[in-house]
C-alpha cells in the first residue's frame, strides 16, 4: 500500500477529511461484507475514523497510514464480531437451525444464508474468511493486519471452511443447495 503524506490531520480538518474520503470505500466495504446492513456498517465506519482521528498523534509511520487505518478497522470489526458472538451464545441472535432451514427454502438468498453461517464461526475465523474470500487479501497481508503468522492465518481459514461445512449440515443444507 502506498504511503500517504498526512502531516497533521488532527490539526488540519481538511487533511483528515481527505483521509476519510480516500479510505472510506475499503473500510465501509469490509464492514458491509461483515455485517450486511448499511446502518451497522456505517456506524462501524464512523467509529473507525473517529478512533483514527483520536489516535493520529500516536501514529508512528511504521506502516502506511492505509494499513494502520485498516488495522484499526479490523480491531473494531473483531470487537463487533465478539459482541455478536456473545449475544449469539446467550441466545439473543439468530433463530434455531430448523427455522433457518425453512427460511432458506422459502426466500433467503444464498448470500444471506452464508452470512449467517459465517456469523456462527469464532470471530477470528470469521475475519480471516471475510478478508481472504471477500476482501481478497493474501494470507501474508491478513497475517500483517491481524498481527498473526501467515501459517496461523492459513490454519484459521482452513478450519473456518471446514466449520462452515459443518454449520451448513447442521442447518440442514447440503452442499448441493449451495
Amino acid at each position: 500500500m502506498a504511503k500517504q503524506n498526512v502531516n497533521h490531520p488532527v490539526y488540519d480538518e481538511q487533511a483528515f477529511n481527505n483521509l476519510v474520503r480516500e479510505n472510506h470505500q475499503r473500510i465501509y466495504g469490509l464492514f458491509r461484507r461483515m455485517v450486511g446492513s448499511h446502518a451497522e456498517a456505517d456506524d462501524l465506519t464512523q467509529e473507525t475514523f473517529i478512533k483514527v482521528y483520536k489516535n493520529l498523534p500516536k501514529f508512528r509511520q511504521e506502516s502506511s497510514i492505509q494499513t494502520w487505518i485498516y488495522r484499526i478497522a479490523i480491531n473494531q470489526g473483531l470487537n463487533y464480531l465478539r459482541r455478536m458472538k456473545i449475544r449469539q451464545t446467550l441466545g439473543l441472535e439468530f433463530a434455531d437451525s430448523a427455522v433457518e432451514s425453512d427460511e432458506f427454502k422459502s426466500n433467503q438468498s444464498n448470500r444471506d444464508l452464508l452470512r449467517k453461517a459465517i456469523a456462527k464461526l469464532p470471530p477470528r475465523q470469521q475475519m480471516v474468511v471475510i478478508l481472504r474470500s471477500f476482501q481478497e487479501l493474501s494470507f501474508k497481508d491478513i497475517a500483517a493486519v491481524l498481527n498473526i503468522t501467515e501459517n496461523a492465518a492459513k490454519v484459521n481459514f482452513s478450519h473456518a471452511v471446514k466449520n462452515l461445512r459443518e454449520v451448513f449440515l447442521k442447518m440442514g443444507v447440503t452442499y448441493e443447495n449451495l
Partner: protein
Amino acid sequence: MKICKQIENLLPLYYTGDLDESDKRLVENHLEDCPTCRQFSHEIQYLLNDLQPDPVNIDPNYGAELVVKIQNRLHNEWRPRKLRSYLVPVLASILIFIIIGFNLVRNPSGSSQWLSNDNIIDFYMDLTHSGYFSEMPDDAFDFLNLNENDLITNETRHKISTVVLATNNNLLIDDYVESIAYLTDQDFELVLKEIENSIF
C-alpha cells in the same frame, strides 16, 4: 485415517491456490485413491465457489455524508488537543485509582483478582458490563488452547493478559488500559510503570 485428516485441512487452501507444489501433489495423489476425500473435496469446492466477493454498492454521496457525520461527532465529542494532552495522564491516574480502589473493595485482602467469574464468557461479559470491554484475546486462547466455555482461573487470566500485552504491539492507549484491568494488583502496577515509561 491420519492422512485424510491432513488432506481435509489442506483442501481449502488447495482450492484457493495457496498450497506449495509438494502439498498440491500430496492432495492430488490422495484424491485419486480416496473416494471419501473426493466427496469432501466436492463439498469444499462448492462452498468456496459461494465464498466469492460480492460487489458492495456504495452510494457516490456516501463519502461526503460520512465526512459530515464524523465532523459533527468530533465537534460534539472531542476536546481541544491542548487541553487533552494534560487530561490524558490525569484521567488515566484517576482511572487507575478507581480500578485499584474498586478491586480492594471487592477483594479487601488484596490478594485475589479484579474479576471473579467462572468461565471466559462470564469473564468477558463482566468486562463488558464494567466498561472495560477490550478485544477478546483470541491469540491468547489459541496460545493457551482455551475455548469460550472453559473455566477461567487466576492463572489463565494472568496468562491471557500477559499474552495480550505481548502480542498487541500497536495497542491504542484506551485498549492498553482496558487490557490490563484484569491483572493482579501487583502485575497491574508493574504494567502501569511500563505504560508511564513508554507513553507519558
